[in-house]
């Protein structure tokens, strides 16, 4: 393969890995939105929190990095449930959806502040799960951690699909998602379903954070780019559509990677945003979303 070709494929691989993380964030945003109509901007922040927590746990307990996943994911499911009860539920009961957006901004800000307090402003990383191994195919080098990230995404999507399509809980969730008022009238405890949705989103955030940190350095300031990326991917893919969230995330990661390699990083952001805005204006439901969300 020619060097430019390998270079291109290398960029695509990197972009897909980034995109995998964005997809996991977007899935969390989309899931919570479909149940509660709340756009949780703080989802990206939870990813970084989970990642840094995993680093600390790994150093403190001395366990292999993969084990931190098993510890942090359930921990975060619990944490998000607590946040839902303490912060989201009271806010949702009192505020309009537009203002809920600001509450999640507040949560994001608070998470960033917490990270700064506890972990300071230094970057952190972790050893890759399967060591410093990589696969090389025809000159293209795929770091093993990327496979873990994509694997996490696949597992999440599959588990979510199974939950939503094949279990009674999933049926309840779908009912709540399509019409919360009707669901409540049918005796479904919407509050409990929302709690479950948040917990799942927490687990997803933890999975995203723990699988990405061995591949890069994260610090307190990473919350904003992740939050923005997750938000964009979820909305561009179509709010409420899980498939849309995944596609949105992967495409975003891909575009970012391609543009920042071949043009400049800043102009990459500009072009990605411009494309997104055009998409919103022309096809406002996002790639795969539902029409009712968009116009007045």
């Amino acid at each position: 393969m020619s060097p430019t070709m390998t270079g291109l494929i290398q960029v695509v691989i990197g972009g897909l890995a980034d995109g995998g993380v964005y997809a996991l964030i977007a899935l969390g945003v989309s899931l919570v939105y479909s149940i509660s109509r709340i756009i949780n901007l703080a989802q990206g922040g939870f990813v970084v929190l989970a990642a840094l927590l995993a680093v600390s746990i790994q150093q403190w307990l001395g366990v292999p990095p993969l084990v931190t996943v098993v510890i942090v994911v359930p921990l975060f499911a619990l944490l998000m449930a607590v946040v839902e009860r303490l912060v989201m539920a009271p806010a949702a009961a009192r505020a309009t959806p537009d203002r809920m957006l600001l509450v999640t901004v507040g949560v994001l800000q608070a998470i960033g502040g917490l990270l700064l307090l506890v972990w300071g402003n230094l970057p952190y990383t972790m050893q890759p799960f399967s060591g410093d191994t990589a696969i090389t195919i025809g000159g293209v080098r795929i770091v093993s951690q990327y496979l873990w990230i994509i694997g996490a995404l696949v597992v999440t999507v599959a588990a979510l699909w199974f939950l939503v399509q094949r279990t009674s809980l999933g049926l309840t969730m779908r009912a709540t998602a399509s019409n919360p008022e009707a669901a409540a009238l049918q005796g479904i405890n919407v509050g409990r379903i929302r709690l479950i949705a948040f917990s799942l989103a927490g687990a997803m955030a933890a999975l995203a954070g723990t699988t990405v940190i061995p591949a890069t350095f994260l610090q307190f300031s990473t919350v904003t780019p992740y939050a923005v990326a997750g938000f964009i991917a979820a909305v561009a893919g179509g709010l409420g559509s899980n498939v849309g969230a995944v596609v949105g995330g992967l495409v975003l990661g891909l575009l970012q990677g391609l543009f920042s390699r071949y043009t400049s990083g800043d102009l990459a952001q500009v072009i990605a945003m411009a494309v997104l805005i055009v998409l919103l204006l022309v096809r406002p439901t996002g790639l795969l979303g539902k029409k009712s969300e968009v116009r007045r």
Partner: protein
Amino acid sequence: MTDAVQFSPARPSPPRRRLGILVAALALGAAGCSASAASGDSGAYTLGLITSQTGTGSQLGVGELQGAQLAVDQINARGGVNGRQLRLRTADDQSNPAQAVLQTRKMLGSVDALVGPSLSGPCRAVIPLATSARLVNYCLSPGVKPEPGSYQWSASAPTDTLAERLMEYWKGQGITRVGLIYTTDASGLDGAEATQHAAARTGVAVVGQASYSPSAVSVTSQLQAATTGRPQALVVWSSGAAAGVAFKGIDQMGLKVPVATTDGNLTYAFLRRIADYTPDTLLIPATRDFWWQQQHPTAQVRQLERGYHDEFRARYGADPDFGPGVAYDAVLLVARALEEAHGDVAGARDALQNLRGVPGVVGTYNFAPDDHRGIGAGDVGIVRAVNGRLTFVGR
């Protein structure tokens, strides 16, 4: 019906009464706090020190504050400046140029000179203010290029010199092809340009280069671009997390070539952070405070360096790195200038730019109206980072 259904718009709030109370309360409350405005004892010189205690520049700023305090205490112990004590008035610019400007505005009129900020962006923002107030402003970032005869000074060696020393060292080792990756922020762009010029001047070829955003998560594609020409060495002109990402990428790619990076990473905190990913050969162009023991400076310099290093270690329990060095020297030099100018704030500029052969810990300073940095190639050497320690390897 007059009271038919209306839209019931929000009444224009009658805020005046309450606004007045609020403002009055604020004023009274704050008046108490403002009692400390710019009084100070009349017999002391006050240096304003603006550093980044929080934000991206805090790796340097925290150390700078320590170095400056050490210098002030040492000067006072020796009798002060013209018999008067030296005081430090500190502020945190939060690595933000706008904050730096605000903090500077507060200090105008109550300080005799300004040391800092830590980063080039805030430095550039502050200089117009310092110039209007005719205050000497010793910026702690090497990344600014002061105008001749201006009120601004810049710390440490110029980027061009650092890059040149590096290229010369590698040329001496038989390396003629290098790759370059750098961040698109101010210091990265600066360093990239310097590297390219230095390479051209010394006859080294830059066979591949790529840039990346400081917040990028992975740089594999950039590294591939930089290594297509099979370089014998790699320059990574980025600092902090961005450099960490690059080193991680290098490690993952299995690149075994010598790697060099900017002296902005000459902090022990950073070296510890990348301990698992430190390239086998990591070189950094560094000023004298990092290798004074391995070369043989004059007795005067040795005494100064020893005094500085020993007392810093005793006070803070760690070896000083980049930040403390530049701040220590800045305080030393500014105090000297005030001494020569007998406290004339504006005259301090002329005094400072006429200082020659003054030894500091970073190097020996030779200022001139068109040289507001004073450090030259002779003060720059190459150190190698091994296991979190820095050892001298050459000139």
